[in-house]
């Protein structure tokens, strides 16, 4: 593909070093503006009325009293939004069913979860807005609800969608079901494989929904003018996606909405979708004033997109030497109120770390009365891998084989055919296993009630549509306009580093910015570990375009043939050999003359980045279990991961550490607790317990670099893999510590204590 650039090994001056990020000062002084930090004169405050029921038919909504309240300037309900057809429409590369999007944004026939929006108001103050919400009269017909995925799959369970028949089943079922879709991957001869096995281990696992836990609640500010144009500031991972979704549900031209992404205070997949944005635009349109909508923490938990809770069954067979002969898994995932969990990706990730001839994975996408699932860092994979890596560990232990050795015996490598389709290219899985084994952590001594566990993870990583524009300013510095949102601070710096490396100039000469939707062509959202890979590719392409133009310009200015001009270390220089000589020109000198010699010099790229390289990681964790309280303490944690190339090692380390800690929280404490009434009982950080500084040790990181052949610097994504191994690694460490195999997440003190007590009772 002509626009894609292959890896070239070379000497690097800037890539791989640790310069200071360009947006750092604003972030440590409080100057940086996040979603809720924007204000416009005359703005109104928007608030959402949310369902108190997990499942109910909406019989009527009466907003008249709210509309009449002084200070209320606009009210919207389902009547203000068009019906959308039940079909998938392309939004960039995502296929989205807008019938579901518009209903998740504002309920139409039914409310399907505690927190489901029904109406929204815009008023002169928050106090008036809240008062207005209380005046909206809704008549509900409360219906039975179901949240547990296994319960929801049973015939006779309360049904969310009367027209939902399980897709992927032949012949088409004659009854509707909460199972929206069934999928199956199969290869080889499973029965024969299990027949060959000397040992078969079969286990069932259950996980609870967890939230991405970003510290910044969703926030947006919309301002519409009378000619139908809209400006929107929002905290999001994908401003082009926000624009596209809003345009569709509001039936506006895409170019009439200008979305400016604010700094984003965490997303992790949870800010890939619209929640209040279209409501704010609609309210602004109606009230003729800007409307600001900021979610409370409670709303974030109740009504954004926690990940699936799931039921997972895993069965693996192997020879007594530890060679896997057959593996199968069934993954039953909550999708939430509308179909579309990540069960497919989970199915593809479950066993990919191993070279298997006989595999079967069945996945079920199940609608239940809780918020619609949104992506969460390597969506689906941590859940599937929790089950698989736990069973692998159990098998290794039963056979007396070292857990890393067991995995090495079965490891996928370059050329391994995955069971979901293609062969793997060059990968670093084995390297991560070997480096983990060689790490001092792996052989450090352990004390009483302490245990060690390892687990591994794989994620595909993606590329997708990416745009950027690189402009040489009159003084020789460059502005780099990026379409990819910088979620974690390293990406702006890394892009500038790659440009500086290409051009042979100082890092500080390149100023990166993230542009709003009017500045560049469509750019996919920041997810899938694509930022440094795809945006980096685009920046390198733009840089090389600029170099070409510089050479051409200098050839004209110096009146020499193009072949005589080389670009080196930020200067145009004679190419050497027998070519024409000329006085070199610096970037600043060329820039000063640019306007008078043809115009500004710029480069740009609009690509669909292909060739993302998969990432693999191996984690080692030591825990100590307090048998009196059931509390599990993390003593030591090491992450070993192949990232292809660490453009800025400190930010790569940050991804590995941050992802691992999210996994630790998922393993030890985080869970959604629903009451019998289907209402969320813990929508706050007190009772939804994420890891705090005192829960954790330092997280050691080992960066492995097996270059991705499809990226000029060898970059693979790195952000998602680290959240995958911790769940099983910790389960395996607990088993190693106290001899109990825990299969229900999270391993919170009451659960661990119960397991200890049950085991003691069984013995006694």
């Amino acid at each position, binding site marked *: 593909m002509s626009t894609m650039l292959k890896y070239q090994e070379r000497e690097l001056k800037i890539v791989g070093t*640790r310069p*200071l*990020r360009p*947006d*750092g*000062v604003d*972030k*440590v*002084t*409080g*100057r*940086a*503006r*996040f979603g*809720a*930090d924007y*204000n416009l004169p005359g703005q109104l405050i928007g608030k959402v009325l949310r369902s108190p029921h997990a499942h109910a038919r909406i019989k009527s909504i009466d907003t008249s009293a709210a509309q009449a309240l002084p200070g209320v300037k606009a009210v919207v309900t389902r009547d203000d939004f068009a019906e959308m057809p039940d079909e998938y429409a392309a939004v960039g590369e995502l296929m989205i069913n807008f019938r579901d999007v518009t209903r998740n944004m504002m309920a139409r026939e039914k409310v399907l979860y505690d927190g489901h929006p029904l109406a929204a108001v815009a008023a002169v103050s928050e*106090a008036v807005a809240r008062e207005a919400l209380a005046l909206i009269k809704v008549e509900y017909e409360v219906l039975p609800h179901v949240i547990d995925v296994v319960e929801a799959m049973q015939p006779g369970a309360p049904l969310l969608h009367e027209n939902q028949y399980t897709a992927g089943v032949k012949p088409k079922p004659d009854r509707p079901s909460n199972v929206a879709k069934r999928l199956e991957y199969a290869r080889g001869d499973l029965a024969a494989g299990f027949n060959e096995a000397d040992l078969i281990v079969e286990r069932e696992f259950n996980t609870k929904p967890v939230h*991405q*836990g*970003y*510290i*910044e*609640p969703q926030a947006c500010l919309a301002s519409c003018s009378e000619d139908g144009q809209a400006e929107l500031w929002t905290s999001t991972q994908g401003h082009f996606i926000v624009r596209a979704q809003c345009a569709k549900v509001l039936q506006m031209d895409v170019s009439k909405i200008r979305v400016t992404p604010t*700094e*984003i*205070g*965490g997303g*992790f997949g949870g800010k890939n979708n619209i929640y209040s944005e279209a409501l704010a635009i609609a309210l602004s349109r109606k009230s003729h004033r800007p409307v600001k909508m*900021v979610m*409370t*923490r409670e709303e974030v938990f109740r009504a954004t997109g926690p990940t699936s809770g799931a039921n997972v069954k895993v069965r693996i067979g192997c020879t007594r030497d530890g060679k896997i002969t057959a593996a199968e898994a069934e993954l039953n995932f909550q999708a939430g109120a509308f179909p579309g969990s990540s069960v497919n990706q989970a199915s593809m990730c479950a066993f990919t770390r191993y070279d298997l001839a006989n595999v079967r994975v069945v996945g079920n996408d199940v609608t239940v009365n809780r918020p619609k699932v949104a992506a969460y860092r390597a969506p689906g994979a941590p859940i599937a891998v929790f089950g698989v890596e736990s069973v692998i560990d159990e098998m290794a232990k039963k056979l007396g084989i070292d857990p890393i050795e067991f995995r090495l015996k079965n490891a996928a490598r370059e050329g391994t055919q995955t069971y979901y389709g293609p062969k793997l290219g060059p990968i670093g899985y084995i390297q991560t296993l070997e480096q983990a084994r060689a790490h001092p952590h792996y052989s450090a001594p352990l004390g009483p009630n302490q245990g060690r566990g390892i687990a591994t993870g794989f994620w595909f990583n993606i590329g997708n549509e990416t745009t950027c524009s690189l402009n040489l300013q009159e003084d020789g510095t460059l502005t780099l306009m990026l379409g990819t949102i910088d*979620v*974690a*601070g*390293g990406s702006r710096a890394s892009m500038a580093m790659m440009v500086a490396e290409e051009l042979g100039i100082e890092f500080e000469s390149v100023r990166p910015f993230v542009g709003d939707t009017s500045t560049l062509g469509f750019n996919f959202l920041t997810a899938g570990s694509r930022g440094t890979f795809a945006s980096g590719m685009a920046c390198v392409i733009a840089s090389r375009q600029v170099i070409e133009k510089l050479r051409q310009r200098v050839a004209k200015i110096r009146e020499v043939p193009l072949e005589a001009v080389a670009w080196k270390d930020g200067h145009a220089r004679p190419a050497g050999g027998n070519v024409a000589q000329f006085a070199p020109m610096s970037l600043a000198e060329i820039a000063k003359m640019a306007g008078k010699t043809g115009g500004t010099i710029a480069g740009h790229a609009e690509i669909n980045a292909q060739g993302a390289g998969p990432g693999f990681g191996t984690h080692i964790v030591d825990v100590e279990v307090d048998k009196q309280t059931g509390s599990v303490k993390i003593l030591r944690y090491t992450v070993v991961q192949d990232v292809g190339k660490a453009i800025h090692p*400190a*930010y790569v*380390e*940050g991804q590995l*550490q*941050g992802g*691992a*800690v*999210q996994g630790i929280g998922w393993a030890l404490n985080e869970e959604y607790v629903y009451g019998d009434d289907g209402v969320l009982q813990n929508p*706050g*950080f*007190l009772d939804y317990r*994420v*890891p*705090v*500084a*005192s829960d*954790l040790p*330092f*997280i050691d990181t080992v960066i492995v670099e097996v270059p991705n052949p499809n990226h000029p610097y060898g970059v693979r994504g790195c952000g998602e893999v680290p959240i995958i191994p911790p769940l099983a690694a910790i389960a395996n460490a607990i088993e190693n510590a106290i001899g109990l195999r825990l299969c229900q997440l999270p391993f919170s003190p009451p659960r661990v204590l119960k397991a200890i007590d049950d085991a003691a009772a069984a013995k006694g």
Partner: protein
Amino acid sequence: MARHHVSATVNGDGVEFLCETGQTLLEALRDELRLTGTKEGCGTGDCGACSVMVDGRLVCSCLMLAVEAEGKSIQTIEGMAVGETLHPLQRKFIEHAALQCGICTPGILIAARSLLARNPNPTESEVRYWLAGNLCRCTGYHKIVEAVLDAAREMRGG
């Protein structure tokens, strides 16, 4: 409902603002004084993103009513740098990449500074427990703790 008039000192400057009875100090700082460096992460005192100093005491500003600020001296993140000179903690956070998205950073810097004011030579454990009230979802706290310990070292003259 009539609003209340409050006079206070913020980052050394005398300020005045009007507020509702039920408005928190956090809301007054952000919405009345337009000092948006202090963040709301939860509104219930669980995340620490709204940390400020009130008369020398570390406080979650979402748990304090705006009217209670009358006559008090408040310090927010906007007052941490002196002119162009960043506080050592601010510098070390950038050097150590102790921030990713940055939303928790103002609260953590305020909290860390108050720790070092009372304990200039904290252990790793003391730093972790002091910061246990400040949630960060991006970093896993590793580089934050490193940055605080390094800033403490520099401030001690080490």
